[in-house]
């Protein structure tokens, strides 16, 4: 495939009129690759995801997906384009059952997903037995980690072209978290583009094809992950402009 799957060019965005959280961001995600995004707390990573998803309108710059401008597209249309987002905060419906949570995005689009629904649902349940066990319970009653698993299940069912993953490992037990990352790699190798945000720098570097460092709303370093080997600790601190 030629050209990037997702490309941001010179995007400036923010919540208030006068304060820009993101400044002049340029970033690309290619199909079949994992692009890692790291940065301190409050650097603007989640804001970046929200901008891609259309929750925030960029003040300048453009976001293109498969060559089409998507900067003004409403969030609910993304699923049809093939973009899926696992946000940092919860995207679950606490009073609906686990199964409804999983299938709801697809039910409205039966034409597109109807045939594969059952199969994929079984896949998810096989992957996360806890969800199978609690499939008719309200999603809100799940434990923190189970909820995160559910978010992943949702993404799996959709099998999008691009998946934005904001801090997937939060609250997951080491074993599950390992499995989730394996999944992500599997997704990528099957041709999906992934934007991965996580605080586990070492793992992000290990998994990603490219890594971007976000600091105070700007991309301060970017490159193939091979450039990021070695003494990450020092390097990261340098990029971030911290001296401890």
């Amino acid at each position, binding site marked *: 495939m030629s050209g990037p799957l997702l490309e941001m060019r010179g995007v400036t965005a923010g*919540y208030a009129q006068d304060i820009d959280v993101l400044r002049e961001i340029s970033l690309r995600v290619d199909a079949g690759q994992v692009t890692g995004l790291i940065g301190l707390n409050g650097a603007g990573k989640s804001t970046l995801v*929200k901008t891609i*998803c259309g*929750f*925030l309108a960029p003040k300048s710059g453009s976001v293109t997906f498969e060559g089409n401008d998507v900067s003004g597209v*409403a*969030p*609910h*249309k*993304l*699923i*049809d384009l093939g973009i*899926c*987002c696992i*946000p940092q*905060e*919860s*995207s*679950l*419906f*606490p*009073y*609906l059952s686990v199964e*409804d949570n999983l299938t*709801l*995005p697809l*039910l*409205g*689009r039966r034409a597109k997903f109807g045939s594969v629904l059952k199969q994929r649902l079984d896949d998810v349940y096989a992957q996360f037995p806890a969800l199978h066990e609690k499939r008719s319970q*309200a999603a*809100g*009653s799940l434990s923190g980690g189970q909820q995160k698993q559910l978010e992943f299940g*949702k993404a799996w069912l959709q099998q999008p072209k691009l998946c934005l993953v904001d801090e997937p490992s939060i609250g997951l037990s080491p074993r599950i978290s390992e499995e989730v990352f394996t999944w992500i790699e599997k997704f990528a190798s099957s041709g999906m583009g992934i934007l991965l945000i996580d605080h586990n720098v070492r793992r992000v570097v290990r998994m990603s094809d490219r890594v971007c460092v976000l600091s105070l709303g700007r991309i301060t370093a970017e490159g193939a992950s091979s450039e990021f080997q070695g003494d990450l600790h020092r390097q990261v601190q340098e990029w971030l402009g911290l001296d401890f």
Partner: protein
Amino acid sequence: MAVGLAMIFGVLKIVNFAHGEFFMVGAYTYVLVALKFEVSPWIALPCAALAGAALGWIVERLLMRPLYRGYASWGFMKDEYAVVVTFGLSLLLINLVDKIVGPYSYKGPSLIETSRFALGPVMLTGQKAIAAVVALLIMGGLAVFLKRSVWGKQIQAVAQNRLGASLAGIDATRTTALIFAISGMLAALSGALLAPMVNPSPDVGAFPAIKSYVIVVLGGMGSVWGAMLAAMILGVSEAFFSVYGSYDYRDAFGLAILVLVLLLRPQGLFGEKGREL
């Protein structure tokens, strides 16, 4: 009526002061369509429903939008905003109808022209019986719609997590408008069904609205079945109380029931209590 309210309120957690006026608009539409155009009341009934739905839709379009602006970023639902806007709306609708249609009340034509008949100790008119049947059908249909259909689930999803709903590909805005339209429709329908009995006048909505609020709380927010059961309990016990107790204070009696229930079950009869921690 209460069920419509249960929707808007349970689902969106928006206090709609103007719900009673949706009721009033429905009742008036029914009466005026039936009387002025001299069509069968069976045609006027859907007209009323339509009017209610349209009104709900418009209200949402024009007035409710700012409520969820910025929900992506921990937007705070401004319930006070909704209260005030719907308060203004309620005033507006009452007075507009008062000025346009006139302050006079009208008795709506009955759906069927059988006169009264006895059913046990109570006399019923055909109208009452029909109204009850239609209402039950609608409520049952609605409950099934909410629980089973995709739309119903989408409605619930939007109510529970707007951000999540958008990400799940649900057009939250359209769904909200839909909720308002349905709830407006229900209120209008109940207005129309009751029009032959309550003789609509511009401020006819106030009392049923308050009753519905009590019912909604009693039944448990957002629970359609709860609302139905609560309506029944309240109706029966109030009637019982006014016959054997004091008629004057039967509303106070209704409150006493409410308080009792809430003391035992703060989430209402059928309300679910979610995990909070």
